[in-house]
């Protein structure tokens, strides 16, 4: 049994190698390109890219197709979400956002998301599951918010996650999502730029922590500017200000 599987994979490798060589020879590698391989069979090349500062937090340095990621609600969650969408959107992927009536499109554009490929369904009402299922069929990334408010049950969540796996889409949940492959959250928020009646908000340094099922990046953390200057995600300056546990004090010092 095992031998047969190994045989099949080696034959697949052989066939791919042949195809690649033919393409190289004809120097027309852009003319015919194999479609992305369905998820579940091979996830090696099937990772949607994310912005560089967030890469260390994710198991495969990106969002694996078919996986589900939850972003803990709270300060910084929407910006973190934008950070996750940015790179894929810039590469022409489609993203759908369900249940976020107040999405700041200007901030999304500043983060680098292409708005023409960001479809919004602000008020799905009672059809949340149906809407997300429909979007998972066509989008590369689907963001779900307000799952608690809509009374989503565990069964529905499993159904959505299964559809995402089947279609090779990434399901991003804003708010708690039990069973997510990766859980991300912001903490130790520190704004810079504003004083007491002076300056303006310029950038925000946060610590993003990741956890999740299995060995998926448990306990990893990264310091990220979210948003940085110009609204895009960034990395803090080379000499980072030590993040004190009592972060309120540091902010007062800013003012």
């Amino acid at each position: 049994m095992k031998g047969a599987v190994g045989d099949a994979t080696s034959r697949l490798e052989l066939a791919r190698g042949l195809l690649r060589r033919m393409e190289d020879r004809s120097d027309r590698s852009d003319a015919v390109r194999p479609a992305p391989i369905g998820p579940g069979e091979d996830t090696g090349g099937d990772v949607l890219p994310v912005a560089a500062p967030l890469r260390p937090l994710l198991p495969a340095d990106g969002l694996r197709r078919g996986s589900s990621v939850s972003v803990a609600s709270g300060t910084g969650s929407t910006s973190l979400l934008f950070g996750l969408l940015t790179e894929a959107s810039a590469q022409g992927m489609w993203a759908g956002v369900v249940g976020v009536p107040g999405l700041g499109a200007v901030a999304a554009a500043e983060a680098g998301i292409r708005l023409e490929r960001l479809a919004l369904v602000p008020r799905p009402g009672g059809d949340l599951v149906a809407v997300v299922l429909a979007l998972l069929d066509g989008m590369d990334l689907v963001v779900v918010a307000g799952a608690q408010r809509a009374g989503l049950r565990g069964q529905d969540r499993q159904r959505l996650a299964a559809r995402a796996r089947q279609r090779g889409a990434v399901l991003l949940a804003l708010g708690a999502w039990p069973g997510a492959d990766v859980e991300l959250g912001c903490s130790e928020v520190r704004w810079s730029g504003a004083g007491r009646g002076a300056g303006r908000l310029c950038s925000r340094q946060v610590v993003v922590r990741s956890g999740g099922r299995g060995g998926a990046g448990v306990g990893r953390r990264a310091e990220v500017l979210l948003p940085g200057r110009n609204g895009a995600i960034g990395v803090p300056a080379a000499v980072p200000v030590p993040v004190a546990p009592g972060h309120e004090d540091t902010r007062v010092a800013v003012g």
Partner: protein
Amino acid sequence: MRPRDERGAPVDGAPVDGASVDGAAERVLALWSPDWPVTAAALGAHVPAHRPAAVLHANRVLACSATARAHGVRRGLRRRDAQARCPELAVLASDPERDARLFEPVVVAVEELAPGVEIVRPGLLALPAKGPVGWFGGEREAAERLIDQVAARTGVECQTGFADGLFAAVLAARRGLGVELGRSREFLAPLGVEELDREPDVDRAELVDLLRRLGLRSLGAFAGLAPADVASRFGADAVLAHRLARGLDPRPPVRRRPPEELAVELELDPPVDRVDAAAFAARALAERLHTTLAGHALSCTRLGVWARTESGEELLRIWRCAEPLTPSGTVDRVRWQLDSWLTRGGSGAVVRLRLTPEETVTAGALQMGLWGEVGESDERAGRALVRVQALLGPEAVVTAVLTGGRDPGERVRLVPWGDDRAAGSGSAGPGDLTGAPAPEPIGLGGHLRADPGVPVRPLRVVPSAAEPDARVHRPGTAGRGPVRPDDDHRPAGAGNARAAEIPQPAEIPQRVGTPQPPETPQRAGAPQRAGAPQPPEALQSSQPSSIRRPTRSRPLRTPKAAKDPVPAWPGRLPAPSPATVPPEPLPVELLGVDGRPVGLRALDLLDSEPHLLVLAGHPGRELSAWAGPWPLQQRWWAGGAHTEVRIQVVLADGAALLLVHREGRWWVTGIYD
């Protein structure tokens, strides 16, 4: 007036119009008027026929007349190049509605002789050849009669072509040929594959390019491929193209006439006699039609537009479409048709409107390509979104477009999926001919302000404002020029609501008191972006909005065209913008240390230092930092002027908010989430 032709009574499930079961195409007569956009535009603008003329869209030649072509003008040429080759060229704007309206007399003229006329697009119509050929005793005779008739009635020159199937007939009409029965495939074989990309509605440039690179240069070579290979390698659209190349009907013969109840009807009360009102009604009707069709998992490929006028006259016209109609494509066609009926006059206002899907195909029945990227993911995403629209209604799925404005909320326009993202932004952005960022006639503020953090104070047009004014000191930006984002602000007066008073930079008073040309305030707001290149302005101001093309049915296939304009509005908040913009502003209370509400002493001066933020029903949250206030005076010349004052606050728990003071209280208009 003449009653319009009514097509035969529909029969459920019967093959349409004698399309035989094996998919061989019916005999079609195509009547084509060369360079129709130019002909129509020249008619509309009264340009004499001998003068070379061209229709331009987005600075490129869309179509040109034969005389212009003789001077070397070609499609796709830039305006300047075209005028260099032919200095006396009459440059005309593209206007699909005008094209459709002026084509109506041609259709009427043909209809007098032959029934079953379908408009493929303005300038091209098709009809079953059987009737006229039988009546006039031959194809040559029928062609002569039709051409004479059109020329006599309308003065329009046209050519005809006969062939099996619409595609071959259109190509034959371009060459003025009649292809013998059953020999369409031979006729098509030597023609180049680029003939597949002639329809303005369908973009097959990529496919044609790919075929050419693969060495399939003629339709015959392409037709020689096995259908299964085409389907598995090149995608759904290529399957259609392949059927065309083989001289078959583009869609498999399983199409069926839909049952009658799919037709949607609307009583217009009061009767509609204006095009815009009719178009508005058509929009709702088209949406209803598409909801119904989506419910049956169908898409419409041939649309019947039927109207009854006050005088009891019934008008019917059938539009045939190259690809399944989208809601906006439907609206376009209904609007064009109503436009031509109403402007023709004589039959009064429309009292009843009905849309009939004359021919449908199963939506999404054609499988998507396994290889290649013929807009596959776009189509897939588009279908998913249309399905959500069917669930929740067309307004429920939106994409955002950035437009001009000063607040995060007003800088975004939400466009329902399927609508043209560019429409409206032409007048809203600085794409105006004047370059003025004026979303509405009154949009350009007299009291323009620069970005917060940039030392420009409210401009006042009243002359006295040119004098030094004690109120204009900007805490936090005290004379240091543009604020660099990473500056650590410790102004001299930190802790004092009124920061150090420092004179304004010298350039400011010069601006005050004179109404500004639009460019100046834009630049004034720009110092923060001074290091960055400024392509948006340059790009946009070079594009007059008047020749921007109206909605086509494919809003998405064109990432190149869908650049989001980011107009530079002085006074808008600089990046980063709030990631959450509450749909309705939330009222909050801002309290000082002494527990009294914080108000304004002057427009840019708080009367005490804010300390606590209270959202109704929640405990107060302490502020750790705040910035502002920045006044914004807009539309002071119109009645009901309102002045807003904005501040940014950072709460002790790390949350940051954008507050606006308006109508005597504070509102949360943005959450830096």
